[in-house]
């Protein structure tokens, strides 16, 4: 084997050693499939997403409306008390402009950057929200505090997943009346 052995006793390998097959290798892809139990709260949350609604959970002790919903209040250390629908609008709490994909591969020059954001959902307690994507907005125009609305998949395409919401888009100046009116609960 024609490999440098360093003073510490290890054998450094360069990318080229692999590319030129200077070193023998075995490749493997373990099967790491899993099934995660949704539980009562997330089970209902996903079922409601399929119906085009966002549901939260209320604690009568601290009066928080918690999103995503949970059956136990981590502050009061007691079970939560009731379900409550919240809006599908909100404000951007924080966001990121990503020019790489989840696996760190670079997005092409014609692919727009991904804009993951934490959206504080209207109707839930301040600071409560979900992580989702922003869309229909220029990356340069995204701001913290920006008002956004969910863009849903067509009802027949929904599967009971967080991706039943395609992304959140800015509520334009033309639409504030509709946003202010909200939806009847």
């Amino acid at each position, binding site marked *: 084997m024609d490999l440098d052995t360093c003073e510490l006793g290890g054998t450094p390998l360069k990318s080229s050693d692999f590319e030129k097959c200077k070193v023998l*290798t075995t490749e493997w892809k373990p099967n*790491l499939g899993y099934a995660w139990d949704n539980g009562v709260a997330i089970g209902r949350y996903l079922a409601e997403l399929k119906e085009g609604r966002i549901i939260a959970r209320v604690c009568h002790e601290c009066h928080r409306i918690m999103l995503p919903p949970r059956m136990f209040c981590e502050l009061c250390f007691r079970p939560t008390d009731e379900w409550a629908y919240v809006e599908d609008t909100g404000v951007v709490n924080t966001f990121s402009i990503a020019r790489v994909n989840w696996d760190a591969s670079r997005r092409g020059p014609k692919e727009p950057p991904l804009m993951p954001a934490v959206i504080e959902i209207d109707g839930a307690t301040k600071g409560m929200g979900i992580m989702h994507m922003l869309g229909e907005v220029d990356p340069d125009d995204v701001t913290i505090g920006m008002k956004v609305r969910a863009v849903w998949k067509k009802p027949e395409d929904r599967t009971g997943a967080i991706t039943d919401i395609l992304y959140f888009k800015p509520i334009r100046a033309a639409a504030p009346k509709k946003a202010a009116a909200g939806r009847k609960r």
Partner: protein
Amino acid sequence: MATTEKMSKNTSPTHWEGEIPVNYIYTYGLAGEAFFRAVKDKGTFLGARCDACDITFVPPKIYCDRCFEELKKFIDVGTVGYVDTFTVSFKNMDGSDKTRPRILAMIKIEGTDGGIIHYLEGIGIEEVALGLPVQAIFKPKNQRKGGIEDILGFEPLKR
């Protein structure tokens, strides 16, 4: 309600499926590299000899795990051995049935203190016995890539 809230329908509980995409490239290390080079290029096995302890390690290693001396002498130990222990596998790794049962055996390599775990071929389950002499069978040389799959298995020794 709440945490005491019981699901009344057994179709209500749902789950979310996913997978963690992980893959890796394993390098065999200095001794493993030498071992699989010998398999690939010469169709034979290497062992590492510790003269002080009178131990021949198969597969080879770069240190004696008894006296911690560095082992520099890799020797050709041949491809003949005997069944030390075995088991029969009817299932694939994903739990599905194998098209035929496979016999997996620990083969002690003759004249050494080590061995190789691999398939037994060319023999029925009822015929396998501890101590059965066997020899390695390899893929044709042009198909070998330098790995454990270059060895097809072990078959009863033809005398």
